[in-house]
């Protein structure tokens, strides 16, 4: 019971912190929005839509990837607190309490995941601009993918943050890990048009399936351009990735907090 209460308290704290920090709310939404409009409008006339997506604009093509980027940024920002609070007593106070460390993993990642998902869903407000009609079932699919991918990213962020002493190092490693995962997810360019080497990376990248899952959802399961696999496979791979990352985070947190 204490474990559940701890998870609940940690989740609630993540949300409260986020809502009270206006710059964070703004940053997590403004950055992907800016990237979306700059890239989307910049490549407007040079972009060749993939087969099946006749007439799809680059702005629309990029949209699912931008949702993934919102998830990614929120995950980074919500786990950086682990590094910041390492030296402040806050994290130590949680660790000296008689509550299992896995509760810390679940509470932190759940909070970050819910935040990321709410933000991504807010982004759906831009749907009319890109002429996509997911329908309720499609929104359900988008929500499911967001939850699973959010969990995967926050768990990965948590595992990295646990090893980091400085926020600078954390940012460096996160950029090294997360941005390539995003670039190679088929979010920016259709996989068929890419060089064969890149195609291999895209196929091997679990994030590609999350982005494809978002494409399925956003197109309302209708004929979906540039999807790597069917919706079921996309959900399964994303779910598996989330499980794996949670496993890594739980395994990491068992390491002593201070190096002996």
């Amino acid at each position, binding site marked *: 019971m204490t474990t559940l209460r701890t998870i609940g308290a940690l989740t609630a704290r993540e949300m409260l912190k986020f809502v009270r920090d206006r710059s964070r709310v703004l940053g997590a939404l403004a950055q992907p929005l800016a990237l979306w409009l700059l890239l989307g409008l910049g490549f407007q006339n040079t972009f060749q839509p993939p087969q099946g997506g006749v007439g799809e604009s680059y702005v629309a093509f990029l949209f699912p990837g931008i949702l993934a980027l919102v998830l990614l940024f929120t995950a980074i920002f919500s786990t950086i607190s682990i590094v910041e609070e390492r030296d402040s007593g*806050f994290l130590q106070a949680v660790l000296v309490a*008689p509550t299992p460390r896995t509760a810390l993993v679940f509470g932190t990642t759940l909070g970050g995941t819910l935040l990321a998902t709410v933000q991504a869903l807010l982004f759906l407000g831009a749907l009319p601009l890109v002429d996509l009609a997911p329908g309720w079932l499609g929104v359900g699919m988008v929500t499911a993918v967001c939850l699973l991918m959010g969990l995967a990213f926050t768990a990965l962020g948590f595992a990295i943050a646990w090893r980091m002493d400085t926020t600078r190092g954390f940012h460096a490693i996160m950029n090294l890990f997360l941005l390539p995962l995003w670039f190679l997810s088929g979010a920016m360019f259709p996989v068929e048009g890419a060089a064969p080497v890149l195609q291999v990376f895209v196929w091997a990248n679990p994030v590609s399936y999350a982005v494809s899952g978002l494409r399925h959802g956003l197109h309302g399961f209708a004929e979906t351009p540039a999807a790597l696999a069917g919706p079921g496979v996309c959900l399964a791979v994303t779910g598996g990735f989330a499980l794996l990352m949670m496993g890594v985070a739980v395994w990491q947190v068992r390491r002593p907090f201070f190096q002996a």
Partner: protein
Amino acid sequence: MTTPAVDIQGVTHRYGTHLALQDVTLQVAPGALYGLLGPNGSGKTTLFRILSTLMPPSEGRAQVFGLDTAQKPDAVRQRIGAVFQDEALDDALTVRENLRFQAALYGLRGTGRRERIDALLQRLDVADRADDAAGDLSGGLRRRVDLARGLLHRPDLLLLDEPTSGLDPAARRTFWTAVQRLREAEGTTLLLATHLMDEADRCDRVGILSDGALVADGAPDTLKDALGDETIWVETDAPARLCNRIEAQFGVSTRVVGSTVQVAPPDPPAFLSSLYEALGDRIRSATVRTPTLEDVFMVHAEVSPEDRRERVLAQTEETEG
């Protein structure tokens, strides 16, 4: 015999090759206020990390109420509370939200939780700020809220790691008044790490740490009395040479303590003037006083004057933040 609140036996700890604690053995009786006195880097925080189950010792064992911190960390965590050098408060949350968060970690809820929070806030004089964000409070108030956080679950042992660092003298006095009141009300055993002598003087018992070794352990007065009563303390550039001179010339016993020389004649005030007459040019300053914990530290740490000219313990907090 009752189980000691803290029982540390032969604890040695290494960070890589750096030896942070060397064969430390000490006990704290239940209900006592025990002070660990030592300069920064002497091993106080390492000992706290071991006691608070954040880190197992490299060698030896540490027990809290008979429970081994490395083998039964969960049982130990039920019994202890900790106030760290930095407040464990989330600045974005209000005081009450912070305390509720802490309550969740210990499974406290309902009216019991509300009454406990209200009672602590009242006792620590922060009730009127309960709904302000923790980040908006002054340093002294934050410390008191953090103390309330550490005490929320009624721990039997509270670890205080330099809880007044960075506070001005008034805030430190208020903090100590609060601690005193809580001791009377709850009977909590307190283990305090500090580098401030006046705080160590408040303790029932003091352990002095120097470079990871426990060099003295006893009641503050006992430790000071062991160095003798009123003596003359002479500041000089060459302590060892002055010692020899005084002993040769007057046949009075002397001792080098850091960069000072302790001279123990039968009548210190009278001796002071003859000392000045004979050796005035070698004396920077000389005072007649009873020993302080700093002197105890200097004597037991066997600090040679070349190693440490500076006094390492502070009478009061000055520059450190």
